Structure formats: structure tokens, C-alpha cells
């Protein structure tokens, strides 16, 4: 696992049925582009998060392919309509094969 990776999600714990809620996600990650060189002139290998997804009760909300130009600690803010009570599942895919997950439950108020 890359060092110091920690996903964070801000989602409401409850929403009205059919309400569009704002979701904020942030993951601490170095997002090394692969373009840089170290002091010896050798390239620093690429190490980024290449995909981010969010699902609600197994249904895709957002699926993002990420490229090396994205800066460190990528932050996503988006909206999702909450039709029923359920779980929001957030997944980040690292270049090194690691997968980071976070789940937030949303109740219907």
C-alpha cells in the first residue's frame, strides 16, 4: 500500500426520498505522475489512483477514470439522488493494485 493513503467521505446520514444530496470525497495520495525525475536523473515511477467509483445499493453513481495530471490528494464533489435508504460505497483503485473502500449509510428522513 502506498504510504499515508486515507480516504475521507462527507455524506449526509439521512435524506428525503428522491432528494439530491451533495457528496464530498477526498483521498490523501501522492499522485506521482511518472514524469518527474529524482536527483540522479532516473524517472520516479508512476503511482496514482487511476479510478474512482461510487455506487448506491450496487447501482453506479459515478465512475471516474483518472490520469497522471491530477494533483495530489484528489477531491471529488458530486450530487446523487437518494431514492431509498441504503449504502453509498466509495472505491478508489491504486496503480499498485490496492483498493481503498469506504461505505456510508443513508437513512430516509
Amino acid at each position, binding site marked *: 500500500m502506498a504510504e*499515508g493513503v486515507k480516504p*475521507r467521505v462527507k455524506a449526509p446520514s439521512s435524506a428525503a426520498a428522491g432528494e439530491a444530496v451533495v457528496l*464530498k470525497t*477526498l483521498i*490523501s495520495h501522492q499522485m506521482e505522475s511518472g514524469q518527474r525525475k529524482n536527483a540522479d536523473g532516473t524517472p520516479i515511477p508512476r503511482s496514482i489512483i487511476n479510478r474512482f467509483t461510487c455506487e448506491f445499493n450496487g447501482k453506479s453513481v459515478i465512475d471516474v477514470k483518472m490520469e497522471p495530471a491530477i*494533483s*495530489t*490528494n484528489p477531491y471529488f464533489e458530486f450530487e446523487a439522488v437518494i431514492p431509498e435508504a441504503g449504502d453509498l460505497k466509495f472505491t478508489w483503485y491504486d496503480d499498485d493494485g490496492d483498493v481503498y473502500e469506504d461505505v456510508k449509510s443513508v437513512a430516509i428522513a
Partner: protein
Amino acid sequence: MKFKAMTAIAALLLSVPAMSLADPDEDQLVLNGEMESVTETAAPAHLSDVLDTIYSGWRFRENETQALQMDDFDNPGMIFADLGLDQWNAVEGEEGKSCASCHDDVTESMKGVRAVYPKWNEAAGEVRTLAMQINDCRETNMQAEPYKYNSTQMTNMEALISVQSRGMPVNVAIDGPVQATWEAGKEMYYTRFGQLELSCANCHEDNYGNMIRADHLSQGQINGFPTYRLKNAKLNQTHDRFRGCIRDTRGHTFDVGSPEFVALELYVASRGNGLSVEGPSVRN
């Protein structure tokens, strides 16, 4: 069309307040919609000859940057405070202890700590910054390797400890045993360094509110350190900032953790007595 454009420009001009563009703005810092922070207050007594009011650097920043600090989720510095919490609970060293072994819950034990550092350590007979105290704890009580003074780990730990004092007024002692160090720091603050022959005071006392190239000069308060800077996307320590400032005067700079910077940190911190602790703050 042309008339419309002219009106738009006129409206823009009218909407700019009469004061200079670069002065501290009137925004108020409220964290997470609940914790009010003091970003403007009467200058401490020892500054009565030179300043009437002290302002946090937050007041000199753009609205977008200010907004980042107002919500803990949006504040990128909080990531590092979270990492600091992992370090807090991690057992290290030959004693088999973590920070939590002695200090328990960081939210209780470290409340108000950031606000009074640097301070006198009676046993050691020296003025200590927070970083020095953390390392002493690691070496003496944990038998662990000290952190490098401006390492990421040290900065994370400082951020974690600062968070517990947010909203509390900076209250650094300047008399008694620390007085000699404080005087040395003051001397340094007014000493011109480098080819450009600039002292701290030339920019941060005489010219705060004015522009330095494309940026607003603040009063150089350190109540918001460690600071997340957008320019390098990481937390920055006070001593790194000092070093950057002296480098910009084209001078030979001091080392992080050097006695000179400890004295300067004490003095600069005391210039912010009364402002709220903001660390980790967000600046550009």
C-alpha cells in the same frame, strides 16, 4: 452594446470599496459553522508603539482560500492531522509506548498546548518549541528515534496537537526566564538580512496590506501554523517559512530548529498573542 459594457464596468468600479484592495478584509472566520475564531484584535502591550491591531493572515487571503479553511472536510491540512492521529496511537521505541500510552486522549490532554508554545522548560533550562518537546518526549519517554525537525511526521504531529487548541487565544509568555530569548528574537525581527537588506519588520510591520509582487503581505502571524500552502500542497512549519523568508532576502539562512529560529519563533508568536490558534490553516 457598448453602452451596456460601459455600465457594467462602472458597476464594477462602484462595487469596489473605497479602501485599498489589499487591506485585510472584513470576513469573519467561523469553523464548521460553529467555532468562532478571533482574526482581529488589539495588539499586545509590547507592540503598542508599532501596531494598534493585529490580524490573522487568514484575513489577507482570497475568499476561495478562506473558504477552504472554514470547513474541516475542505481543509487539506486536516488530512495530515488525521495521519498525526495514527502516529499518536502507534507504539514505537524500546519502552513499547505510544503517545497515547501516557497522554491518553489527544483531544483532552493536548487542549491549549499549541497556544502557549514556545515556552520555558524548567528541567532542561531552555526555551522549547512544540517540535523540541515532541522529540524530547520521543527520546526520553519512548526511547524512540526523534523525528527530523521539519519532517512530514513532525509536521503531522504538530498539526494534530494544534487542532486541539483551535479557537483558543495564543498566549505565549514573554517575561521571566524566557525574556532573554524573547529579546534575542525581537533583535532578529528588526535585523536586516541578505543582499536585499530586509528585516521581518520591513514587510510584515511596515507594509502589511500592500502587495509583494502578486501577493498580499500579511502581518506574518504564526497562529495558523502548521500551514497548508496551496503552492506546495503540503503542511509547512514555522521554521520552514522563516527559512523561505530569509532566503528571499538573498541571505544565508539559519537551520530549522536552530537557537536563532527558536528565539524568532517565540518573538513572532508573542506578536500574535490574542489571536485564535488556527493550525492547520490554509494559505496560498
